[in-house]
């Protein structure tokens, strides 16, 4: 028999023997898969369930266990996802565990089969088992779906995608565990290092993402405190990590979880089929194949004599200390993210060195169990610290330098800037409300931190580009941390884009962007924005300046033409520049017109629907004004109406609507203190925009005393040394200056205005209005 033929025979024998041995595990994989998959496929059902017939069929299908979503909710889903990961890791321990015991490795390695064949035959056997289990489970679920709801192209594309993705994920876990086994001498060591290797993609992702945000300025990755939902942001910002994210990084927790979104999320919303991205999985597959080749190489060079001996896996020990240590050091830096950048860097480096020294000692003594050996190998520690410092250098110096580059003006086609919502909020302020005891408690919340509400504006003129570049430059040079976010995206003429995110911008950086929104160009865009938005608006609510009165005038509600005219009037004021750009203390605020995407009449707090008429078109006609409990809504666009907004005011006056801005009750007392003293009594000042809170007279909030762990009930208010005004003249003068929101400035005041009925408002008088 030739050696080639013989090699093939022994390879085939090893493959078939392993396959036979692990075939039973394919059934477990299949069973877990069927239960796990059903959730994904149930979503597909819903996507196609537009017609009542299909919906009915879907309901019927729920009787069928494979389509019962309740089986896969929450922890159950995680359990089944985890089952595959654990099975893949266990298979690696079964397949290659022989090399961890001296007696079995003696026999195996004396057989007439090469090490590469020995490794590859087992690898392929497990791949076959995994593929068979996953394929079968998917096929069963797909076939069941097809039987109940009909076959479709989308279903089979999804089938192919899920098969490819899950198989890759399964083999990725298996391969990493195989590497851990091949490099380890003892089973305990192999299990520990397998866990570290399997978490390594996530650890690397966390480390790099955190370091890029804490050690650099303007990195394209948004800072996420303590790892919360990194992937969402990585994906949103489209950086290189995100491109590998689902396939390579977080493969187990997020690749699998992400499958829903990849394939089905749009389905769930009744949207069109979203073609899954096979490329990411292909990248992951290639990475897995490369890792398998690496494992095979390690196996060919493995020293058999380490079998059964702990502490011989130097490479894995070093890897574990560096990856875990760097992730923990990056975390330490992120905890102190609000400090000045140089302190953040210092904390990261010092904590990293300490963590690695402690980690190395613990791991080394745990495995080697010999202080003498520890001392002998102590030179590994400075080597590992060097690797850590190189990572810090790569992110904190090289990447920081890269992110501080500003594209040359002549190369820029346009720039998108996220204007923090406080710039826009003077016009379209998003406010949420809560109602208590029929009294309206209004707590204004600025949604600066919300990604979706951050408006990106595009600027193209040379002046605008230069202004933004200079702001970017000042952000690069600024060492004092702030709390505002500015996102800048340069679209270059060569088609590429450069993104810079500054999470620690200061108010002066934001203020430097104000000229942008004062341009004609910006006005034009604002109009388009308002027009588009206003199509979604229902009848507006008139809100008094202090928020205590919220009314839908019956005549406006009943007349769609009048509503359209009002929008047109507001539109004209924006066009003509009559609406101030932000809270303008120099002009009197008359009140707000609040637009919501909901029909306010549906939430009318005065339930007299019997009094109203419904015409033949189903349209409700209000008999009288409706007081709206706007606490029911969470998303309002609040348009401030100032003196000087000629078009809007003339419309209101012409139609007798101007009176709706007036308060129900008179202010009887005003307390005032300078902003700095009152700041602690107010919330939402971090964004630089102050917003008022209006409370019913009995309002109290809970405050936990950390020392005594008791809960105190406190009434919102001002410090005891606040100035108090009760005279009619003073009150009239001051109440005209009170604003529900304005930009924070040091010259302004915090104000408590109390009404005759006991309600009160905590609001502001901006410095510019205080005089």
């Amino acid at each position: 028999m030739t050696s080639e033929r013989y090699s093939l025979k022994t390879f085939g024998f090893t493959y078939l023997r392993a396959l036979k041995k692990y075939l039973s595990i394919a059934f477990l994989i299949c069973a877990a898969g069927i239960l796990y998959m059903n959730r994904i496929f149930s979503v597909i059902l819903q996507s196609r369930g537009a017609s009542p017939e299909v919906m009915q069929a879907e309901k019927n299908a729920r009787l069928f266990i494979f389509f019962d979503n309740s089986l896969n909710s929450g922890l159950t889903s995680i359990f089944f996802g985890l089952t595959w990961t654990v099975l893949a890791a266990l298979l690696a321990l079964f397949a290659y565990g022989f090399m961890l015991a001296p007696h079995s490795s003696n026999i195996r390695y004396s057989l007439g089969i090469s090490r590469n064949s020995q490794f590859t035959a087992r690898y392929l056997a497990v791949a076959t088992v995994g593929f068979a289990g996953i394929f079968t489970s998917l096929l069963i679920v797909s076939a069941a779906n097809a039987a109940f709801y009909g076959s479709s192209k989308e279903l089979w594309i999804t089938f192919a995608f899920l098969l490819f993705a899950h198989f890759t994920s399964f083999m990725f876990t298996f391969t990493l565990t195989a590497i851990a086994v091949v490099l380890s001498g003892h089973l305990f060591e192999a299990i520990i290092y397998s866990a570290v290797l399997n978490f390594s993609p996530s650890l690397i992702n966390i480390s790099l993402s955190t370091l890029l945000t804490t050690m650099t300025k303007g990195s394209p990755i948004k800072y996420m405190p303590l790892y919360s939902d990194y992937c969402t942001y990585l994906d949103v910002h489209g950086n290189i990590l995100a491109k590998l994210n689902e396939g390579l990084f977080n493969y187990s927790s997020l690749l699998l979880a992400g499958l829903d979104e990849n394939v089905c999320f749009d389905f769930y919303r009744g949207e069109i089929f979203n073609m899954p991205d096979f490329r990411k999985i292909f990248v992951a597959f290639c990475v897995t194949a490369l890792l398998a080749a690496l494992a095979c190489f390690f196996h060919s060079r493995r020293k058999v004599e380490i079998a059964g001996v702990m502490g011989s896996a130097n490479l894995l020990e070093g890897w574990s200390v560096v990856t875990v240590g760097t992730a923990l050091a990056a975390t330490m830096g992120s905890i102190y993210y609000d400090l000045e950048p140089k302190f953040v860097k210092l904390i990261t480096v010092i904590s990293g060195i300490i963590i690695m020294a402690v980690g190395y000692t613990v791991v080394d003594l745990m495995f080697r169990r010999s202080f003498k050996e520890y001392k002998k190998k102590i030179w590994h520690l400075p080597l590992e610290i060097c690797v850590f410092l190189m990572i810090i250098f790569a992110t904190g110096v090289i990447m920081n330098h890269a992110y501080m580059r500003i594209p040359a003006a002549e190369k820029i086609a346009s720039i998108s800037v996220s204007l923090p919502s406080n710039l826009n909020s003077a016009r379209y302020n998003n406010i949420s409300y809560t109602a208590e005891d029929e009294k309206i408690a209004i707590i204004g919340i600025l949604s600066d931190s919300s990604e979706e509400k951050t408006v990106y504006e595009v600027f193209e003129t040379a002046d605008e580009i230069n202004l933004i570049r200079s702001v970017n430059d000042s952000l690069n040079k600024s060492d004092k941390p702030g709390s505002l976010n500015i996102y800048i995206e340069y679209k270059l003429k060569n088609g590429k884009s450069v993104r810079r995110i500054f999470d620690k911008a200061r108010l002066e950086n934001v203020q430097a962007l104000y000229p942008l929104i004062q341009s004609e160009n910006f006005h034009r865009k604002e109009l388009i924005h308002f027009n588009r938005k206003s199509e979604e608006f229902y009848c507006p609510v008139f809100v008094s300046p202090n928020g205590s009165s919220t009314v839908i005038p019956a005549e406006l509600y009943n007349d769609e033409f009048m509503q359209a005219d009002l929008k047109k009037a507001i539109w004209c004021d924006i066009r003509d520049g009559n609406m101030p750009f932000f809270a303008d203390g120099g002009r009197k605020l008359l009140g707000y017109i609040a637009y919501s995407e909901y029909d306010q009449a549906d939430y009318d707090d005065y339930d007299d629907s019997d009094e109203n008429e419904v015409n033949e078109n189903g349209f409700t006609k209000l008999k009288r004004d409706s007081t709206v409990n706007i606490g029911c809504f969470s998303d309002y666009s609040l348009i401030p109406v100032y003196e000087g907004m000629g078009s809007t005011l003339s419309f209101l006056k012409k139609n007798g609507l101007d009176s709706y801005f007036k308060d129900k009750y008179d202010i009887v007392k005003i307390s005032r203190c300078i902003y700095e003293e009152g700041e602690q009594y107010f919330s939402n000042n971090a964004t630089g925009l102050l917003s008022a809170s209006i409370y019913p007279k009995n309002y109290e909030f809970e405050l936990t005393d950390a020392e005594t762990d008791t809960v105190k009930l406190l009434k919102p208010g001002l410090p005891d040394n606040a100035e108090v005004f009760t005279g009619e003249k003073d009150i009239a003068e001051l109440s005209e200056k009170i604003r529900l929101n304005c930009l924070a400035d040091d010259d302004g005041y915090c104000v408590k205005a109390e009404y005759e009925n006991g309600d009160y408002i905590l609001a502001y008088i901006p410095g510019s209005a205080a005089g």
Partner: protein
Amino acid sequence: MIEVKNLTKGFGGKNAIEDISFEVGSGSIYGLVGFNGAGKTTLLKCIAGVYKPDSGEALIDSKNTFTCPAIRQKMFFAADSFLFPESTMYKTGKFFAGYFPNFSFEMLDKLCGVFGIDKNARLTSFSKGMLRQAELIAGFSAMPEVLLLDESFDGLDPAKRNLMNNLILDYTAEKNCSVIISSHNLHEISDICDRVALIDGKKIRMDRSVDDIGADRCKFRLVFDAEKNESDFSGFNIKKIKCEGKMVTLSLIGSKDENEAKLREMNPLLIEKFPLSLEEIFLEEMEGSDYDFREIFS
């Protein structure tokens, strides 16, 4: 034919075997003798292709056993523990049949019958001696051209040991097989081996055919009329000497007759000549490497 050329293998910076060379011809049985930890198993594992030598090479039919896995189909390595304790003899045979092209189930059945081993019984129920027998049965059934036996006689009763000796001798003669046996049992080694090598922790101290092993050594017991000490025998090549007053026991290297003639010149009252057993040669060669137990509790 097995060739071992300048083989060195170390662990943790210390060499277990160093620069070892020898050859084992076809149809020859080679015995490896040495104290515990002398490097016998390391040497066998290097020859079997389990360990990668630090330097040197082990060849079977001129092919390197580590780098040429196909050559290992001709070789069976009976290590000091068995492969599948949870399996049966028959299943173990099926496993080896996948890697040894000449594996004979007929031989397996025969040998199981000879040793009285149930081929379908789980190996976990076997005693240590039975496991040894099972291991050797598997080895013979694989019909190898090279057989490496690592202390394979341990745990065998005298009858089975004798049977095994005969089997090894017959198999070697019939199949022209090269066999290397490592053992502490010096009697067996001297009974069945053609050559014996004494390994002392790093190197081979002695490598001779069994016939020649005692040719240049002889033990004498002498009685003199007066007390003698070691200096009185300075003209001899002494391996070991024990002076107890007028009685002297000594082991000499060199021609037996010449040594006897020289001793008679010293006019002993009595002179007795004994051939040295392999065990005695082993102990003499290993002298100085062990504690003198009499000194431990003194």
